[in-house]
């Protein structure tokens, strides 16, 4: 009897990704996320056509700021990644993964990539759909405004990847309370700090992402918030994403996740 081959890290990530993706596609959360995105897109497009059609770029910008950076970017990655590991642990299916010869790093990364990938697809798809629908009857501005939409999309993508990493991490650390802990972290650190004046706002990556997207400052005393160079958000958000991913992988790699009877 010869033991089977040990899967490489890449093969392990791919196997976990495929399994997680299949479950996401058949689960309710992806549909819920799609409905949330659709509601925001429909609301923005309705607002654009209900108003005097002279300022669609402003409507689009408000939709991106309020709909995507204030609501959906919190909701969608939370829905699709906070339970990625936590739900496996709570439903006791984690044993199926951890008893296989895939490195635990592959479990963490495969689950993250599936959740983050689905979140990106929903958010960026929704953003592009909103752009097309908003400028549908004005093809000129549709082309002119595309760079700023793409810029917002890039910033939104970075923030989505970060929030997915944060939710994956908290889901791995506090498996029994993943939803609450992730919500608290995002609400306090990312949302509330993103409204504070002065340098307090630098705690929130949401603020950096909105700067990268070229959106106007909001919140309390926005004039007191120092401006940042365009490269700063990238330099801040990317390492933080990697740090949360590393920590999530570390937790998954060393945890016993003992749920159920002794």
């Amino acid at each position, binding site marked *: *009897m010869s*033991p089977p081959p*040990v*899967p490489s890290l890449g093969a392990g990530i791919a196997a976990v990704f495929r*399994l997680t993706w299949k479950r996401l596609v058949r*689960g309710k959360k992806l549909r819920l996320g799609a409905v949330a995105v659709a509601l925001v897109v429909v609301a923005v497009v309705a607002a654009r056509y209900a108003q005097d059609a002279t300022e669609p770029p402003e409507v689009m910008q408000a939709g991106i700021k309020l709909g995507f950076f204030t609501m959906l970017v919190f909701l969608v990655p939370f829905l699709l990644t906070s339970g990625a590991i936590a739900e496996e642990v709570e439903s006791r299916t984690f*044993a*199926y993964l951890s008893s296989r010869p895939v490195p*635990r790093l592959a479990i963490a990364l495969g689950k993250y990539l599936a959740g983050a990938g689905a979140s990106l697809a929903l958010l960026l798809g929704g953003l592009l759909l909103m752009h097309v629908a908003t400028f549908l009857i004005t093809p000129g501005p549709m082309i002119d405004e595309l760079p700023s939409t793409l810029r917002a999309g890039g910033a939104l993508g970075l923030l989505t990847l970060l929030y997915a990493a944060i939710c994956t991490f908290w889901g791995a650390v506090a498996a029994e309370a993943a939803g609450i802990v992730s919500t608290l972290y995002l609400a306090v650190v990312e949302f509330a700090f993103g409204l504070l004046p002065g340098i307090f706002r630098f705690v929130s990556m949401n603020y950096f992402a909105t700067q990268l997207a070229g959106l106007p400052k909001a919140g309390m005393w926005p004039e007191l918030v120092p401006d940042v160079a365009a490269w700063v958000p990238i330099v801040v958000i990317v390492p933080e994403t990697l740090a949360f991913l590393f920590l999530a992988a570390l937790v998954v790699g060393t945890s016993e996740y003992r749920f159920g009877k*002794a």
Partner: protein
Amino acid sequence: MSGAGDTSRERGDALAVRAVRLSKWYGRVTALQDVSLHLEPGIWGLLGPNGSGKTTFLRCVAGQLKPSLGEVRVAGERPFSNVRALRRIGLCPEADAMYDELTGTEFVTAMAELSGYPKDDARKRASDALDDFGLAKAKDRAIGGYSRGMRQRAKLAASMVHDPDVLLLDEPLTGTDPTSRHVILEQIRRRAEAGALVIFSTHVLHEVEALTDQVLLIARGQVVAQGRVHEIRDLLEEHPHHVRIACDRPRELAAALVRVEGVVGVRFPWPGTVELMTRDPDSTYTAIAEESVKGGFHVGSITSPDATLEALFHYLVERSSRMAGTGADAAVGSAVPAQYQSQLAPGEKNAAPAQEAEP
């Protein structure tokens, strides 16, 4: 240890499960205490009452849990988060949790892919494994619609899809119908015949007998006996049987019965009740009937608080505690097998720490 000893141990570890002073606790709860054993290929029944530490032991061997003290090795490797050890292990957990949204084929294919097989190979293996477990017709249906027995068989197919050398089955027959049971037992035998080491846990002696003659008895986190099923049966016979009689004059009845051959003890748990301990239950029951008639006793009820295996486990644990420190074996097998006594520090032999709580 000498080099020759090392070599022999490595050879012996090729497909073995070895635990040396393995202990595991959760906070103040001790789930496993000082378990030392060496299991060779074949089928091993892990027998113990609920909460005795069977699942914890299997999880330690399967690399799901880290030992709090001591160590466990599978084929010479520590299994926790170790892909070299895990590729040889197949685990069928007890929990009925599965990926209900997947079909049987998708589930088992995913498990084969996670075991390192490429997609096509994994799919073929999954199909074969499901066929082996009698799920050929149901394999493309969602697992959520499976019966309990089918789910159990799908779990077992997943645990064996990669031809593991060490198969760990946690209560594999729970909730199965006779047909499922037959299929499962047959597949387990086939794995063992192919040279695998199979450990399956249960709290039913009858299930062990259907598969193997080799048993490990575990109770309160300790391996209290290791041996053959017939030896366990002998212990059951040796274990004093308890008979509780509620009657109007318990002390007089006790005085009459204490002379009966086989009766080794008597106590009065509460007023109006006498409890006899006997090694010969048949004679004792006959004597109770005779004495009741002869002495004119009014007998309200005759019951036995024993639950066979449950009682045997308590008996063995008590006996193990009594013999700790005397150098005597706890039961059929030693609490620390002889081959590992040499690995213990001086003064540690048979020195089991006090248990803090029932898991």
